[in-house]
């Protein structure tokens, strides 16, 4: 015979089971995410330098130093320019290419793979390929430009151009990911809705795009925007491999300054302060984007 169970007992049992089932994930989160993040927050309040035996509590001094630092301010500006180019560029081109790929019947998976390749490939190797392509004397890009009658350019060593060259590579890096996400979104739109639209009078592809594709892709577009923004703000490796932040700090982005501060000048305290500011900023940004999109959808 089973013992009668009161409702409150059942709730307690359910909670216990829930806790038990989520404990592996909680443990992993604590070990891999919360502990390191807390350590960085604690370090950002000290004057710790790599190799020191002890550290002193300095309050918010690191944050003050960093935010007044000219190099850091410069890197924030660079990052914003980079994001302003890469996010619309990679979303617009990603959507364009996914529409073109979706529209064709042959070689669809070939194109998808080709566009996705940069996402999976090792960036250091790919950056070397870009270095060759953009080389001032024998690079393919300059050869083509020269043939078109444009003067050869020093893409990576001209302070006025380098950031845009890095941004172009950033778009190339991000497009494949966006193409795959958009293709997945497009495949969920029923064919009948396009047919209904053409019967309803939306005869041109553009009108059908406005009436059906764009609104129905909205959730995917939101996701792609958030991911692309975060990835663009986190730009580091192309800069580190190709320009080392130069020439004259023209490509130095936030994470590159963070890296230099912490691992070249070994100032862990100020480096951690940059890391914390960056983390908070990106978190707020994605919350705002999600919130805005949610409001737009319910409006």
């Amino acid at each position, binding site marked *: 015979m089973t013992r009668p169970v009161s409702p409150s007992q059942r709730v307690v049992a359910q909670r216990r089971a829930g806790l038990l089932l989520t404990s592996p994930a909680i443990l992993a989160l604590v070990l891999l995410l919360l502990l390191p993040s807390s350590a960085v927050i604690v370090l950002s309040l000290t004057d710790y330098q790599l190799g020191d035996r002890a550290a002193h509590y300095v309050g918010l001094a690191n944050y003050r130093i960093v935010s007044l630092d000219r190099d850091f301010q410069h890197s924030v500006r660079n990052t914003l320019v980079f994001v302003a180019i890469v996010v619309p560029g990679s979303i617009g081109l990603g959507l364009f290419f996914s529409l073109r790929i979706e529209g064709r019947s042959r070689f669809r998976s070939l194109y998808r793979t080709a566009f996705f390749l940069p996402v999976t490939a090792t960036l250091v190797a790919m950056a070397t390929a870009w270095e060759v392509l953009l080389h001032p004397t024998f690079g393919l890009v300059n050869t083509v430009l020269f043939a078109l009658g444009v003067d050869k350019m020093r893409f990576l060593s001209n302070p006025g151009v380098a950031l845009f060259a890095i941004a172009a590579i950033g778009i190339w890096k991000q497009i494949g990911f966006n193409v795959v996400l958009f293709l997945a979104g497009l495949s969920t739109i029923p064919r*009948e809705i396009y*047919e*209904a639209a*053409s*019967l309803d*009078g*939306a005869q041109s592809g553009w009108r059908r795009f406005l009436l059906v594709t764009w*609104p*129905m892709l909205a959730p995917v577009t939101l996701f792609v925007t958030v991911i692309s923004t975060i990835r663009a703000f986190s730009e580091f490796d192309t800069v580190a491999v190709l320009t080392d932040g130069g020439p004259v700090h023209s490509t130095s982005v936030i994470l590159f300054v963070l890296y230099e501060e912490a691992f070249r000048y070994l100032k862990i305290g100020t480096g951690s302060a940059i890391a914390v500011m960056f983390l908070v900023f990106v978190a707020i940004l994605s919350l705002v984007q999600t919130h805005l999109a949610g409001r737009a959808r319910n409006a």
Partner: protein
Amino acid sequence: MTPCSIEIDAICKRFGGHQALKSISLAVRAGEFVSILGPSGCGKSTLLRLIAGLDDPDSGDIRVSGNSMASVGPRDRGVAFVFQNYALYPHLSSYDNIAAPLVMRELNGFERLPGARMLPSVARKRRSIDDRVRAIAQMLQVDPWLTHKPGQLSGGQRQRIALGRALVREPRLFLLDEPFANLDAALRHQTRAELAALQKRLGTTTIFVTHDQSEAMAMSDRIAVMFDGTIRQVATPDELYRNPCDLDVARFLSQPRLTCMPAKVIVEGWVMIGGEHVALADANMPGAEGIAGFRPEHATLRPRGTQGALPGIVERIEHAGADVQVFVRLAMMDEPCIVRVGSQELSRWTPGTSCSVALDAASGWFFPRRPAETASTRIRTVEAA
């Protein structure tokens, strides 16, 4: 718009290696309600899509009121289409869904911008669209849901919105692709009566695709029965019921199932079925071999040993409202034959009872065997039994 007639002239359509439509011809009179009835995969939806202009035929021509549609796009055919899954725009409210065909046709890109309403000319157009949307909504009784999005509506409500979107621009031709397939039984009955009444009132030429014979029977002026890419018979529901042109059509139109038995015509009006001489008026080709077919309602149960009736044993009984379907095992048949009897007779025919099945000589059919049929039918030959 005035209703139009349609002539479909020797239409062929191939998808890869599959010949979906094999030279289909069909004429629909102005204002007529024609159903295209057939099993799934017979090409009936393909035919409808060709009429709408959503696909192009490989050969043949479609004429609407005498004008060839070969070079006319879907938008300009004056055709409204109701899809099986309704294909409503999920991000638009019911109101905007119904208004979409008018907005797309009557306003240009600039006039559709939200601010353009300020201009008197645009405001006038918007008001005229609004009037028509509200009139349609009232006719279909969907006013309470105009602000809802399709995701918040039930299947029946969505179906009405889809009808509204189709009707709002007063099409001259109305095409429906299994519009009731996703509704439950009670709603299906109600909606089909409403649709038939609406069609009669508006007088719009209508082509209705369905695999449900009772739907086609209930609503249509005429029914075109399709099998395997060809139209087998075009007739009024009554004619189709009484006089199907071949075995496939007879089978498809029998509820729940046509009983088919190998038979040989002895003299005119008499066939030999499994050693019994049975009267069958339709058998008029002495010497011909083929299939005798009869519906459950065209046979009666008699005591064992009745002359001219087929001996069998009652296998099981299924209740169907006022009637009872008795499944009788006959000697030479794979499947039991079904006889419909009044429920008051139920007590006489308990499972295991010996009985005889007497056919109604005037209502049964004889279908002479064609070469292709021998392979496809699952009926054993008389000799094998």
